[in-house]
């Protein structure tokens, strides 16, 4: 209960601060839009991405499903984190650097998967 009360107090403080940042109607609308977009993420975007991922995974051999799911998810996240830097000309983030990083990441991931498959085969697991 104490945690809930502390949380409510912090919520109130946050709302007061947030109200201070929205000084014009345009700013208030933009903030409201962002907050609404944040709510739509788990309601619309994640199920859609997850559903597509599950469908794609079913077309792959079982040993590769986890690798591809984790690799695709991480690649998407890296792209998401890179977008602000790629959009800002002075940030020094380039497509070349990002693609090289992804190339190394996928090579390591597929290499690790291949080693695991070979080890499981030696142990006669499948």
């Amino acid at each position, binding site marked *: 209960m104490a*945690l809930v009360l502390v949380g409510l107090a912090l919520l109130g403080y*946050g709302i007061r*601060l*947030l109200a201070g*940042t929205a000084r014009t109607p345009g700013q208030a609308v933009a*903030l409201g839009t962002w*907050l609404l977009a*944040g709510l739509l993420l788990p309601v619309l975007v994640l199920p859609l991405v997850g559903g597509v991922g599950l469908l794609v995974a079913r077309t792959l051999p079982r040993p590769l499903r986890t690798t591809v799911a984790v690799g695709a998810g*991480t690649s998407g996240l890296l792209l998401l984190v890179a977008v602000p830097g790629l959009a800002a000309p002075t940030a*020094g983030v380039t497509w070349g650097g990002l693609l090289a990083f992804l190339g190394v990441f996928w090579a390591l991931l597929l290499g690790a998967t291949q080693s695991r498959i070979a080890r499981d085969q030696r142990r006669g697991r499948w």
Partner: protein
Amino acid sequence: MRWRPPGQGNPAAEAHDVRVSARLGLWLATAFALCLATGLLSHLAQHAPWWPGRPAQLYRITQGVHVLAGTAAVPLLLAKLWSCWPRLSARPEPAAPRGPAAQRLGRRWGYAAERAALAVLVAGAVLTLTTGLVGRAGGAPGPFATAPTHHAVAWLTVGALAVHLGVKLPRIRDGLATPLGRPAPERVGLSRRDVLGGAYLSATAVVLATVGSTVPALDRVSPLARRADRGPQGLRVTRTASAARVTRVDARWRLTMQWPGGRHEVDLPGLAGLPQRTLRLPLTCVQGWSAHADWTGVPLVDLLAAVGAPVGRVTVGSLEPVGVHRSSVLPVERVRDRSTLLALRINGSVLDLDHGYPCRIVSADRPGTGQTKWVTALRVDP
């Protein structure tokens, strides 16, 4: 037949198991706690007069941790939401049909309050991380001020998180106390261990991709790092002269110093003629990047002594015509510290206009926002 989201009441959907959600939640809460603690320190470093000047690397470390923990929170948050999302639309457990009306009403209101706090938590967390990521790149996600919004919405998120934890604590304890177990052969999608391993791997990858901003030795392996050495004279610039509307500084420039009962002006040759000191100090931006440089200039305390001014709190004025960076305040402890310089040179060369020519403040363990550039006035309050 009523449609049911995958995972809701389906034990084969291991990604949505409470054991996964609880473990992801623990890591996410840890990342948020680190962000809150270091974010508060950054706020104090920018606004509290007692922020220490030693060790010189302190702000560099705390702000680096802030940015990296926030970056790691992105995959953790998305994985956590993916793990929880079937439960987001879950209905409350039915109240005892013969219970008192007040109890049923209380349960209904409790459920509504918990859902409202959850909505604020999700929306706030997304906006906090978005403003952090976009602000780190020097951009703005909307027509509102990025840093104050980041600060405000972080409090909102932490408050909603505390409410959420307060309500869900028994369930979280159960989830953490129950072993992950072996994957079920009939499972749908990834196993519990796969989901957790994937989330941890993603978090590690995004941290590795950005860590070079904070640890320059790793910038070769960090494609998303803001390279601190990319800029005039080998040092990055966050706020350029043109962005600050400082177009040129001509020979008429003077540094004006004022104190109760006194006033003194000095031109650039006069300033350069005073005894200089060279120090290797880190410059740390609130955006998370940091770099060392050799700064040469007049210790502020020596300058005040040379013109007969008393030692006291100093308000620094800039040529910047508008904006929050056009002035800063140096507390008396900083002014007394001989490592607080009015710097005229960087790495042996005269300051570039983007670095604050003709002179700027450089003080150890102080955020870049307080290292005022294009200094033109000093007001001393003893």
